[in-house]
């Protein structure tokens, strides 16, 4: 069975909000209707978004790190938001695991938003129905788009390629490899929701350089010249390496 999902690489996300704006642009112009805003250019602007980028600071000064954290529906494999819906408006598709809301059935009771531990659902204050990320279900199967563009709008927009999209049930897919090889993890595993979206952790990139790798004790380019007496005691890298 297929389970489409996003894998978000926190190591390269720079918090530019390109995914937020491209998501809003694509989905507010889509066939499901606009995503309403109030006071967009005024005091206290507010509106409906499927995707947000938050920022956290981790560590104790001065050893802190800034972590940008994109946040959208995780398309849980065992979504607690679905069974609580009294109308059946919220559902999980058998075919690809996307969790969707049928806007024509939703009565706007907000119960599903209470039942999502992550706060990924937002009511549209004007259409009065519950909204959430659709994984761009109206893009990814659109055969009028070139194959390479059949991806969620956020994935297309990300300038650092921090967002990967694919089937996490296919062990050889790009997303499965990323989860497996780069330590992908789910959010709040304690609730057993089994989120399909995964996050890739921050990584420390360190190179190990020894002093004798920086100072060439016997530079072959200058073999003919008179050697300055070098300061390193004992055998050096150059003594044991065939250049």
């Amino acid at each position, binding site marked *: 069975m297929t389970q489409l999902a996003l894998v978000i690489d926190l190591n390269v996300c720079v918090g530019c*909000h390109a995914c*937020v704006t491209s998501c809003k642009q694509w989905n507010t112009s889509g066939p499901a209707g606009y995503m309403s805003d109030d*006071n967009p250019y005024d*005091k*206290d*602007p*507010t*509106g*409906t*978004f499927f995707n*947000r*980028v*938050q*920022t*956290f*600071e*981790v*560590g*104790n000064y001065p050893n802190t790190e*800034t*972590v940008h*954290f994109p*946040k959208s529906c995780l398309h849980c494999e065992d979504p*607690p938001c679905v*069974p*609580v*819906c*009294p*109308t*059946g*408006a919220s559902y999980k598709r058998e075919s690809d695991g996307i969790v969707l809301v049928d806007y024509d*059935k*939703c*009565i*706007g*009771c*907000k*119960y599903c*938003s*209470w*039942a*999502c*531990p*992550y*706060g990924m659902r*937002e*009511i549209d*204050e004007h*259409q*009065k*129905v519950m909204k959430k990320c659709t994984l761009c279900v109206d893009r990814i199967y659109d055969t009028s788009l070139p194959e390479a563009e059949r991806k969620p709008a956020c994935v297309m927009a990300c300038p650092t390629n921090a967002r990967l999209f694919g089937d996490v049930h296919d062990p050889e897919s790009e997303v499965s490899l990323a989860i497996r090889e780069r330590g992908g*993890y*789910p*959010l*709040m*595993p*304690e*609730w057993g929701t089994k989120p399909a979206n995964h*996050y890739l*952790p921050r990584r420390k990139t360190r190179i190990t350089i020894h002093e004798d790798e920086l100072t060439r004790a016997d530079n072959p380019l200058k073999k003919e010249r008179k050697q300055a007496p070098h300061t390193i005691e004992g055998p050096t890298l150059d003594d044991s390496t065939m250049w």
Partner: protein
Amino acid sequence: MHPAFSVIFLTTLSGVGQGLFLALVTAQSYAAVGFIELENPSAFFGIGSLIALLFLAAGLFASFFHLGHPERAWRSIARWRTSWLSREVIVLPLFMGVVFIYGVLHYFGWDPNVLGVSNPLQGQLSLLVGLVGTVICFALFVCTAMIYACIKFLQEWHTPLTVANYILLGTASGFTLATAYAAIQAPHLTTLYAVWAVIITLSALVTRVWSLLRNRRIQYKSSLRTAVGISHSNIVQKSQGFMAGSFNTREFFHGAPRQVFLAIKWAFLVLVFPVPLLLLAAGMGSSAVAVLLAAFLVQYAGLIAERWFFFAQANHPQNLYYQTVG
């Protein structure tokens, strides 16, 4: 959570109606086995059922204000297999129907001896309807409470005490109203009802205080660490992705200052329990209508505060993501 008045009124008003119905059936069962004598039962049960029905209807009316699309409310009967909300939507009108039938049977005296037994247990159709109604009434309490108790990550709600509180608080307010109603309509029942109202209110005091104590020492399973998946003891939010509010900041925070929050807790602890208990004790001997009515009104006002606090106290794990504007 943000307490919505539509839901506060739905749960408290229908609790009163359910409790009052249980009180009526209690009196009828006592009479059926000859514990008490009833004078003019048709008016007592008929009008009593009407009052219960009015409370239930008011609760149902309030619930519509919670919906974004009330015109589609009928759709919410679809998922009764999985959703307690759907079950409540089915059981509430069903219960109202039974209360209506119960009242009509009594008021018009259509009470054939269906069981074929005579004294002391009179085989009355209305008694059977009353017993069926009692079962449905408890089912409704359970459905209402389970809407909240079934969400496991709202840890303040995820306990059998939630169900106990909904049953006992609703029944207590219904019996208090029944006491005042009896003082007007059937004074010889006042003491019976007052004693039950006191017993149920005291039981509710036990379970409600128990749940308050339980919630005081709750260990939250989620933390910022599990929420963003970074193992560090010092994670501070710097931005929640927007500068002003969103649905997430409005729906899941009660927004009241700490003092108000605590004041409401003490207000409900005083108004739901000691004050009505004193008024019931003061009014039951003399069937003083004004005192008993005051007992009900004070208790009901206290229940509004109780329900407000019930919602406000629940701490949704999504709040971890919405701690800092910036």
